[in-house]
Protein backbone atom coordinates (compact mmCIF):
# COMPACT_ATOMS: atom_id res chain seq x y z
CA UNK A 1 0.00 0.00 0.00
CA UNK A 2 1.14 3.49 -0.75
CA UNK A 3 1.97 5.80 2.11
CA UNK A 4 0.46 9.16 2.84
CA UNK A 5 3.88 10.71 2.20
CA UNK A 6 3.59 9.40 -1.35
CA UNK A 7 0.26 11.15 -1.80
CA UNK A 8 1.60 14.37 -0.32
CA UNK A 9 4.46 14.50 -2.80
CA UNK A 10 2.35 13.56 -5.80
CA UNK A 11 -0.27 16.17 -4.95
CA UNK A 12 -0.20 19.16 -7.26
CA UNK A 13 -0.63 21.33 -4.16
CA UNK A 14 2.74 20.31 -2.78
CA UNK A 15 4.49 23.69 -2.88
CA UNK A 16 7.39 22.93 -5.20
CA UNK A 17 6.85 25.52 -7.90
CA UNK A 18 5.25 23.20 -10.44
CA UNK A 19 2.23 25.39 -11.07
CA UNK A 20 4.33 27.91 -12.97
CA UNK A 21 5.74 25.38 -15.45
CA UNK A 22 3.81 24.16 -18.48
CA UNK A 23 6.58 21.85 -19.74
CA UNK A 24 6.38 23.22 -23.26
CA UNK A 25 2.62 23.45 -23.45
CA UNK A 26 2.49 27.24 -23.46
CA UNK A 27 4.89 27.31 -26.42
CA UNK A 28 2.95 24.58 -28.22
CA UNK A 29 -0.29 26.50 -27.72
CA UNK A 30 1.26 29.71 -29.00
CA UNK A 31 2.61 27.92 -32.08
CA UNK A 32 -0.87 26.57 -32.78
CA UNK A 33 0.24 22.96 -32.29
CA UNK A 34 -2.16 22.34 -29.42
CA UNK A 35 -5.60 23.90 -29.66
CA UNK A 36 -7.96 21.33 -28.18
CA UNK A 37 -8.31 18.15 -26.16
CA UNK A 38 -7.11 15.95 -29.04
CA UNK A 39 -4.02 18.09 -29.39
CA UNK A 40 -3.39 17.83 -25.65
CA UNK A 41 -3.74 14.05 -25.84
CA UNK A 42 -1.13 13.87 -28.56
CA UNK A 43 1.12 16.25 -26.64
CA UNK A 44 0.84 14.19 -23.47
CA UNK A 45 1.58 10.97 -25.35
CA UNK A 46 4.78 12.61 -26.57
CA UNK A 47 5.71 13.79 -23.07
CA UNK A 48 5.07 10.31 -21.72
CA UNK A 49 7.12 8.57 -24.40
CA UNK A 50 10.05 10.99 -24.42
CA UNK A 51 10.33 13.09 -21.25
CA UNK A 52 8.88 10.70 -18.69
CA UNK A 53 11.30 7.77 -19.16
CA UNK A 54 14.31 10.04 -18.65
CA UNK A 55 12.86 12.00 -15.74
CA UNK A 56 11.53 8.91 -14.01
CA UNK A 57 14.71 6.89 -14.51
CA UNK A 58 16.94 9.62 -13.11
CA UNK A 59 14.57 10.12 -10.21
CA UNK A 60 14.53 6.42 -9.46
CA UNK A 61 18.31 6.07 -9.83
CA UNK A 62 18.86 9.01 -7.49
CA UNK A 63 16.37 7.56 -5.04
CA UNK A 64 18.15 4.24 -5.04
CA UNK A 65 21.53 5.87 -4.54
CA UNK A 66 20.23 8.06 -1.73
CA UNK A 67 18.35 5.37 0.10
CA UNK A 68 21.39 3.06 0.03
CA UNK A 69 23.38 5.86 1.63
CA UNK A 70 20.63 6.39 4.14
CA UNK A 71 20.95 2.76 5.20
CA UNK A 72 24.72 2.51 5.24
CA UNK A 73 26.48 5.83 5.75
CA UNK A 74 29.89 4.20 5.57
CA UNK A 75 32.10 6.28 3.29
CA UNK A 76 33.19 9.84 3.74
CA UNK A 77 30.85 12.62 2.80
CA UNK A 78 32.77 13.50 -0.36
CA UNK A 79 32.86 9.88 -1.58
CA UNK A 80 29.14 9.71 -1.13
CA UNK A 81 28.70 12.71 -3.37
CA UNK A 82 30.34 11.08 -6.38
CA UNK A 83 27.36 9.05 -7.64
CA UNK A 84 25.17 12.15 -7.46
CA UNK A 85 27.71 14.13 -9.48
CA UNK A 86 27.67 11.39 -12.11
CA UNK A 87 23.87 11.42 -12.27
CA UNK A 88 23.95 15.20 -12.56
CA UNK A 89 26.49 15.15 -15.40
CA UNK A 90 24.61 12.42 -17.26
CA UNK A 91 21.32 14.27 -16.99
CA UNK A 92 22.96 17.52 -18.01
CA UNK A 93 24.24 15.79 -21.19
CA UNK A 94 20.66 14.70 -21.92
CA UNK A 95 19.25 18.18 -21.53
CA UNK A 96 20.57 20.01 -24.56
CA UNK A 97 18.46 23.14 -24.18
CA UNK A 98 19.87 25.71 -21.73
CA UNK A 99 16.31 26.90 -21.06
CA UNK A 100 15.30 23.38 -20.07
CA UNK A 101 18.41 22.92 -17.96
CA UNK A 102 17.47 26.09 -16.11
CA UNK A 103 13.81 25.07 -15.78
CA UNK A 104 14.86 21.70 -14.38
CA UNK A 105 17.24 23.28 -11.88
CA UNK A 106 14.74 25.93 -10.81
CA UNK A 107 12.13 23.26 -10.18
CA UNK A 108 14.74 21.21 -8.38
CA UNK A 109 15.60 24.14 -6.15
CA UNK A 110 11.93 24.73 -5.34
CA UNK A 111 11.41 21.07 -4.58
CA UNK A 112 14.53 20.95 -2.44
CA UNK A 113 13.26 23.89 -0.40
CA UNK A 114 9.93 22.18 0.16
CA UNK A 115 11.44 18.74 0.71
CA UNK A 116 13.97 19.91 3.29
CA UNK A 117 11.29 21.57 5.36
CA UNK A 118 8.79 18.75 4.97
CA UNK A 119 11.06 15.73 5.51
CA UNK A 120 14.30 16.97 7.07
CA UNK A 121 17.23 14.69 6.28
CA UNK A 122 21.01 14.60 5.88
CA UNK A 123 20.57 13.23 2.39
CA UNK A 124 19.86 16.58 0.75
CA UNK A 125 23.45 17.62 1.41
CA UNK A 126 24.70 15.08 -1.13
CA UNK A 127 23.03 16.89 -4.03
CA UNK A 128 25.59 18.66 -6.23
CA UNK A 129 25.70 22.38 -5.53
CA UNK A 130 24.74 24.61 -8.43
CA UNK A 131 23.73 28.28 -8.35
CA UNK A 132 20.44 27.51 -10.11
CA UNK A 133 19.69 24.47 -7.98
CA UNK A 134 19.91 20.70 -8.45
CA UNK A 135 18.18 19.08 -11.41
CA UNK A 136 14.57 18.33 -10.59
CA UNK A 137 14.83 14.52 -10.94
CA UNK A 138 17.80 14.48 -8.57
CA UNK A 139 15.97 16.66 -6.07
CA UNK A 140 12.92 14.42 -6.37
CA UNK A 141 14.98 11.27 -5.95
CA UNK A 142 16.53 12.54 -2.73
CA UNK A 143 13.24 13.95 -1.44
CA UNK A 144 11.42 10.67 -2.02
CA UNK A 145 14.26 8.87 -0.22
CA UNK A 146 14.03 11.33 2.69
CA UNK A 147 10.28 10.77 2.80
CA UNK A 148 10.86 7.04 3.04
CA UNK A 149 9.21 6.11 -0.27
CA UNK A 150 10.19 3.18 -2.46
CA UNK A 151 12.10 3.45 -5.74
CA UNK A 152 8.93 2.47 -7.60
CA UNK A 153 6.99 5.22 -5.87
CA UNK A 154 9.66 7.78 -6.70
CA UNK A 155 9.56 6.83 -10.39
CA UNK A 156 5.80 6.95 -10.29
CA UNK A 157 5.67 10.45 -8.86
CA UNK A 158 8.16 11.59 -11.51
CA UNK A 159 6.22 10.13 -14.44
CA UNK A 160 2.93 11.41 -13.06
CA UNK A 161 4.37 14.91 -12.71
CA UNK A 162 5.39 14.88 -16.36
CA UNK A 163 1.70 14.38 -17.21
CA UNK A 164 -0.05 16.63 -14.75
CA UNK A 165 2.06 19.77 -15.28
CA UNK A 166 1.08 20.32 -18.91
CA UNK A 167 -2.43 18.98 -18.33
CA UNK A 168 -3.26 21.58 -15.72
CA UNK A 169 -1.53 24.27 -17.79
CA UNK A 170 -3.82 23.30 -20.67
CA UNK A 171 -6.88 23.76 -18.49
CA UNK A 172 -5.68 27.25 -17.64
CA UNK A 173 -4.42 28.28 -21.08
CA UNK A 174 -7.07 26.75 -23.31
CA UNK A 175 -10.03 26.69 -20.95
CA UNK A 176 -10.44 22.97 -21.61
CA UNK A 177 -13.21 21.19 -19.78
CA UNK A 178 -11.54 19.94 -16.59
CA UNK A 179 -13.62 16.76 -16.53
CA UNK A 180 -12.52 15.84 -20.01
CA UNK A 181 -8.91 16.50 -19.06
CA UNK A 182 -9.24 14.23 -16.02
CA UNK A 183 -10.79 11.60 -18.24
CA UNK A 184 -7.82 11.90 -20.58
CA UNK A 185 -5.40 11.53 -17.68
CA UNK A 186 -7.28 8.45 -16.53
CA UNK A 187 -6.93 6.97 -20.01
CA UNK A 188 -3.19 7.65 -19.93
CA UNK A 189 -2.79 6.14 -16.46
CA UNK A 190 -1.88 2.68 -17.74
CA UNK A 191 0.89 4.06 -19.96
CA UNK A 192 2.14 6.21 -17.09
CA UNK A 193 2.24 3.18 -14.76
CA UNK A 194 4.23 1.20 -17.32
CA UNK A 195 6.77 3.95 -17.83
CA UNK A 196 7.21 4.33 -14.08
CA UNK A 197 7.72 0.58 -13.70
CA UNK A 198 10.34 0.46 -16.47
CA UNK A 199 12.12 3.43 -14.98
CA UNK A 200 12.28 1.79 -11.57
CA UNK A 201 13.56 -1.38 -13.23
CA UNK A 202 16.59 0.40 -14.72
CA UNK A 203 17.36 2.48 -11.64
CA UNK A 204 20.27 0.21 -10.63
CA UNK A 205 22.05 0.60 -13.99
CA UNK A 206 25.05 2.76 -14.61
CA UNK A 207 23.77 6.32 -15.21
CA UNK A 208 25.32 6.25 -18.67
CA UNK A 209 22.88 3.54 -19.67
CA UNK A 210 19.75 5.30 -18.48
CA UNK A 211 17.26 6.46 -21.13
CA UNK A 212 18.22 9.50 -23.22
CA UNK A 213 15.11 10.11 -25.32
CA UNK A 214 15.16 13.43 -27.10
CA UNK A 215 12.12 15.29 -28.39
CA UNK A 216 13.38 17.92 -30.86
CA UNK A 217 10.44 20.27 -30.44
CA UNK A 218 10.75 20.21 -26.67
CA UNK A 219 14.24 21.68 -26.95
CA UNK A 220 13.48 24.00 -29.83
CA UNK A 221 10.29 25.46 -28.43
CA UNK A 222 11.78 25.83 -24.95
CA UNK A 223 14.41 28.14 -26.40
CA UNK A 224 11.88 30.10 -28.41
CA UNK A 225 9.68 30.40 -25.32
CA UNK A 226 12.63 31.74 -23.35
CA UNK A 227 12.96 34.65 -25.79
CA UNK A 228 9.35 35.81 -25.36
CA UNK A 229 8.92 39.13 -23.73
CA UNK A 230 5.75 38.09 -21.92
CA UNK A 231 5.31 34.58 -20.55
CA UNK A 232 2.65 33.23 -18.25
CA UNK A 233 4.66 30.10 -17.47
CA UNK A 234 8.33 29.82 -16.60
CA UNK A 235 8.75 26.95 -19.06
Amino acid sequence: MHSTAYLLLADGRFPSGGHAHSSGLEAAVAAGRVTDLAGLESFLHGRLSYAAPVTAAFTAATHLTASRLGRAPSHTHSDNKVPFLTLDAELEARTVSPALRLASRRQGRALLRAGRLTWPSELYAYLPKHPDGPHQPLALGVTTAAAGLSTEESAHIAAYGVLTGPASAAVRLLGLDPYQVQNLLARLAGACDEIAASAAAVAHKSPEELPAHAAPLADISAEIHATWEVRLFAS
Partner: protein
Amino acid sequence: MLADHDESVPHTHPEPGVDPHPPLPQLDRAVRIGIGGPVGSGKTALVAALCRALADELRLAVVTNDIYTTEDADFLKRAGVLDPARIRAVETGCCPHTAIRDDISANLDAVEELEEAFGPLDLVLVESGGDNLTATFSKGLVDQQIFVVDVSGGDKVPRKGGPGVTTADLLVINKTDLAPLVGADLGVMDRDARARRGDLPTIFQSIAEDPHASQVAAWVRHVVAHSRGHEHAGAH
Protein backbone atom coordinates in the same frame (compact mmCIF):
# COMPACT_ATOMS: atom_id res chain seq x y z
CA MET B 1 -0.77 64.87 0.92
CA LEU B 2 -4.14 65.02 -0.62
CA ALA B 3 -5.91 64.57 2.65
CA ASP B 4 -4.39 67.77 3.95
CA HIS B 5 -5.68 69.87 1.13
CA ASP B 6 -9.08 68.57 0.37
CA GLU B 7 -11.70 68.42 3.07
CA SER B 8 -13.85 66.03 1.04
CA VAL B 9 -11.21 63.37 1.37
CA PRO B 10 -11.19 61.56 4.70
CA HIS B 11 -8.05 61.72 6.71
CA THR B 12 -5.86 58.76 6.63
CA HIS B 13 -6.35 56.82 9.82
CA PRO B 14 -4.94 55.93 12.18
CA GLU B 15 -1.82 58.10 11.76
CA PRO B 16 0.34 56.31 9.22
CA GLY B 17 3.40 56.34 11.43
CA VAL B 18 1.64 54.43 14.15
CA ASP B 19 1.48 50.73 13.72
CA PRO B 20 -1.05 49.04 15.97
CA HIS B 21 0.74 45.72 15.43
CA PRO B 22 3.40 44.59 17.82
CA PRO B 23 6.77 45.43 16.30
CA LEU B 24 8.22 42.96 13.81
CA PRO B 25 10.78 40.55 15.09
CA GLN B 26 14.21 41.88 14.27
CA LEU B 27 15.36 40.62 10.89
CA ASP B 28 18.85 39.87 9.67
CA ARG B 29 17.72 40.23 6.09
CA ALA B 30 15.78 42.75 4.03
CA VAL B 31 12.21 43.49 5.04
CA ARG B 32 9.80 41.99 2.53
CA ILE B 33 6.65 43.93 1.81
CA GLY B 34 3.96 42.48 -0.43
CA ILE B 35 1.82 44.76 -2.57
CA GLY B 36 -1.40 43.09 -3.68
CA GLY B 37 -4.79 44.11 -4.97
CA PRO B 38 -7.13 43.91 -7.93
CA VAL B 39 -6.05 44.42 -11.53
CA GLY B 40 -5.19 47.98 -12.42
CA SER B 41 -5.60 49.43 -8.93
CA GLY B 42 -2.14 51.01 -9.04
CA LYS B 43 0.25 48.42 -7.60
CA THR B 44 2.99 49.05 -10.15
CA ALA B 45 2.45 52.78 -9.84
CA LEU B 46 2.88 52.41 -6.08
CA VAL B 47 6.07 50.38 -6.51
CA ALA B 48 7.43 53.11 -8.77
CA ALA B 49 6.38 55.82 -6.32
CA LEU B 50 8.02 54.02 -3.40
CA CYS B 51 11.22 53.56 -5.37
CA ARG B 52 11.15 57.24 -6.21
CA ALA B 53 10.61 58.17 -2.58
CA LEU B 54 12.95 55.68 -0.93
CA ALA B 55 15.70 54.74 -3.40
CA ASP B 56 18.05 57.36 -1.96
CA GLU B 57 17.72 56.22 1.64
CA LEU B 58 17.08 52.46 1.38
CA ARG B 59 18.76 49.65 -0.52
CA LEU B 60 15.88 48.36 -2.60
CA ALA B 61 14.90 45.56 -4.93
CA VAL B 62 11.61 44.52 -6.49
CA VAL B 63 10.04 41.19 -7.38
CA THR B 64 7.07 41.47 -9.66
CA ASN B 65 4.47 38.82 -10.36
CA ASP B 66 2.88 41.19 -12.80
CA ILE B 67 2.94 40.28 -16.46
CA TYR B 68 6.15 42.14 -16.86
CA THR B 69 7.07 43.70 -20.18
CA THR B 70 10.12 45.60 -21.32
CA GLU B 71 7.78 48.61 -21.24
CA ASP B 72 7.33 48.13 -17.52
CA ALA B 73 11.09 47.92 -17.14
CA ASP B 74 11.50 50.97 -19.34
CA PHE B 75 8.85 52.78 -17.35
CA LEU B 76 10.69 52.20 -14.10
CA LYS B 77 14.00 52.98 -15.76
CA ARG B 78 12.76 56.19 -17.35
CA ALA B 79 11.25 57.24 -14.08
CA GLY B 80 14.84 56.91 -12.92
CA VAL B 81 13.64 55.03 -9.89
CA LEU B 82 15.44 51.72 -9.96
CA ASP B 83 18.12 49.87 -11.87
CA PRO B 84 16.15 47.29 -13.90
CA ALA B 85 18.64 44.63 -12.81
CA ARG B 86 17.14 44.98 -9.34
CA ILE B 87 13.76 43.87 -10.63
CA ARG B 88 13.00 40.16 -11.01
CA ALA B 89 9.87 39.03 -12.79
CA VAL B 90 8.27 35.77 -11.72
CA GLU B 91 5.95 33.75 -13.94
CA THR B 92 2.85 32.57 -12.14
CA GLY B 93 1.36 30.09 -14.61
CA CYS B 94 -1.93 31.99 -14.78
CA CYS B 95 -2.32 31.63 -11.00
CA PRO B 96 -1.21 34.92 -9.43
CA HIS B 97 -2.68 34.04 -6.04
CA THR B 98 -0.99 30.62 -5.99
CA ALA B 99 2.40 32.23 -6.47
CA ILE B 100 2.03 34.55 -3.49
CA ARG B 101 0.06 32.33 -1.16
CA ASP B 102 -0.04 28.57 -1.78
CA ASP B 103 3.26 27.89 -3.52
CA ILE B 104 5.63 30.73 -2.85
CA SER B 105 8.78 29.00 -4.03
CA ALA B 106 9.42 31.00 -7.19
CA ASN B 107 8.96 34.26 -5.29
CA LEU B 108 11.25 33.14 -2.47
CA ASP B 109 13.88 32.14 -5.02
CA ALA B 110 13.60 35.55 -6.68
CA VAL B 111 13.91 37.40 -3.38
CA GLU B 112 16.93 35.34 -2.39
CA GLU B 113 18.56 35.82 -5.78
CA LEU B 114 18.21 39.57 -5.42
CA GLU B 115 19.63 39.50 -1.91
CA GLU B 116 22.55 37.46 -3.17
CA ALA B 117 23.21 39.69 -6.16
CA PHE B 118 22.71 43.08 -4.51
CA GLY B 119 22.73 42.40 -0.80
CA PRO B 120 22.65 43.47 1.83
CA LEU B 121 19.31 45.08 1.07
CA ASP B 122 16.94 46.97 3.34
CA LEU B 123 13.72 46.36 1.50
CA VAL B 124 12.31 44.00 -1.12
CA LEU B 125 8.93 44.90 -2.56
CA VAL B 126 6.93 42.00 -3.98
CA GLU B 127 4.15 43.04 -6.36
CA SER B 128 1.52 40.39 -6.88
CA GLY B 129 -0.20 39.91 -10.19
CA GLY B 130 -3.58 41.63 -10.32
CA ASP B 131 -6.11 39.28 -8.77
CA ASN B 132 -9.33 39.52 -6.82
CA LEU B 133 -10.23 40.66 -3.36
CA THR B 134 -9.40 37.31 -1.79
CA ALA B 135 -5.73 37.16 -2.76
CA THR B 136 -3.32 37.77 0.06
CA PHE B 137 0.34 37.03 0.61
CA SER B 138 1.62 34.12 2.62
CA LYS B 139 3.45 35.05 5.81
CA GLY B 140 6.16 32.72 4.57
CA LEU B 141 6.86 35.16 1.76
CA VAL B 142 6.43 38.68 3.15
CA ASP B 143 6.70 40.36 6.52
CA GLN B 144 4.03 42.96 5.87
CA GLN B 145 1.49 43.46 3.14
CA ILE B 146 -0.17 46.38 1.47
CA PHE B 147 -3.48 45.91 -0.29
CA VAL B 148 -4.22 48.44 -3.01
CA VAL B 149 -7.75 49.08 -4.24
CA ASP B 150 -8.92 52.07 -6.20
CA VAL B 151 -12.00 54.20 -6.16
CA SER B 152 -12.93 53.47 -9.75
CA GLY B 153 -14.24 50.03 -8.82
CA GLY B 154 -16.94 51.89 -6.89
CA ASP B 155 -17.20 52.79 -3.22
CA LYS B 156 -18.57 49.35 -2.31
CA VAL B 157 -15.17 47.65 -2.41
CA PRO B 158 -14.24 48.09 1.28
CA ARG B 159 -17.71 46.93 2.29
CA LYS B 160 -17.23 43.71 0.34
CA GLY B 161 -14.29 42.99 2.57
CA GLY B 162 -12.37 39.87 1.74
CA PRO B 163 -9.03 38.92 3.28
CA GLY B 164 -7.15 41.62 1.36
CA VAL B 165 -9.22 44.52 2.60
CA THR B 166 -9.79 43.06 6.04
CA THR B 167 -6.38 41.76 7.05
CA ALA B 168 -3.71 43.62 5.07
CA ASP B 169 -1.26 45.48 7.27
CA LEU B 170 -2.00 48.57 5.22
CA LEU B 171 -4.98 49.26 2.98
CA VAL B 172 -4.39 51.83 0.26
CA ILE B 173 -7.38 53.37 -1.46
CA ASN B 174 -5.83 54.79 -4.59
CA LYS B 175 -6.86 57.18 -7.35
CA THR B 176 -8.82 59.49 -5.09
CA ASP B 177 -8.45 62.06 -7.88
CA LEU B 178 -10.97 60.02 -9.85
CA ALA B 179 -13.59 59.85 -7.10
CA PRO B 180 -15.71 62.73 -8.39
CA LEU B 181 -15.59 61.32 -11.92
CA VAL B 182 -16.82 57.88 -10.95
CA GLY B 183 -19.19 59.07 -8.27
CA ALA B 184 -17.39 57.22 -5.50
CA ASP B 185 -18.14 58.48 -2.00
CA LEU B 186 -14.85 58.47 -0.11
CA GLY B 187 -16.65 58.99 3.15
CA VAL B 188 -18.49 55.71 2.64
CA MET B 189 -15.26 53.95 1.78
CA ASP B 190 -13.63 55.37 4.87
CA ARG B 191 -16.47 54.26 7.14
CA ASP B 192 -16.58 50.75 5.64
CA ALA B 193 -12.80 50.38 5.82
CA ARG B 194 -12.84 51.30 9.52
CA ALA B 195 -15.63 48.82 10.12
CA ARG B 196 -13.78 46.04 8.36
CA ARG B 197 -10.29 46.76 9.61
CA GLY B 198 -10.64 47.94 13.16
CA ASP B 199 -7.34 49.53 14.12
CA LEU B 200 -5.44 48.58 11.00
CA PRO B 201 -4.33 51.63 8.99
CA THR B 202 -5.86 52.82 5.74
CA ILE B 203 -4.39 55.44 3.46
CA PHE B 204 -6.28 57.41 0.84
CA GLN B 205 -4.03 58.61 -1.92
CA SER B 206 -3.66 59.66 -5.51
CA ILE B 207 -0.38 58.78 -7.10
CA ALA B 208 -1.39 61.02 -9.97
CA GLU B 209 -1.25 63.93 -7.54
CA ASP B 210 1.46 62.65 -5.20
CA PRO B 211 4.00 60.76 -7.30
CA HIS B 212 6.03 59.94 -4.19
CA ALA B 213 3.11 58.27 -2.39
CA SER B 214 4.33 60.14 0.66
CA GLN B 215 2.06 58.57 3.26
CA VAL B 216 2.73 55.03 2.13
CA ALA B 217 6.45 55.82 1.96
CA ALA B 218 6.27 57.02 5.56
CA TRP B 219 4.57 53.78 6.60
CA VAL B 220 7.24 51.74 4.79
CA ARG B 221 10.05 53.72 6.45
CA HIS B 222 8.45 52.95 9.75
CA VAL B 223 8.22 49.22 9.02
CA VAL B 224 11.85 49.11 7.93
CA ALA B 225 13.00 51.02 11.01
CA HIS B 226 11.07 48.64 13.26
CA SER B 227 12.64 45.61 11.68
CA ARG B 228 16.05 47.13 12.31
CA GLY B 229 15.20 47.35 15.96
CA HIS B 230 15.27 51.14 16.20
CA GLU B 231 11.99 52.87 16.75
CA HIS B 232 10.86 55.32 14.16
CA ALA B 233 11.19 58.91 15.35
CA GLY B 234 7.54 59.67 14.73
CA ALA B 235 6.17 56.50 16.18
CA HIS B 236 5.95 57.56 19.78
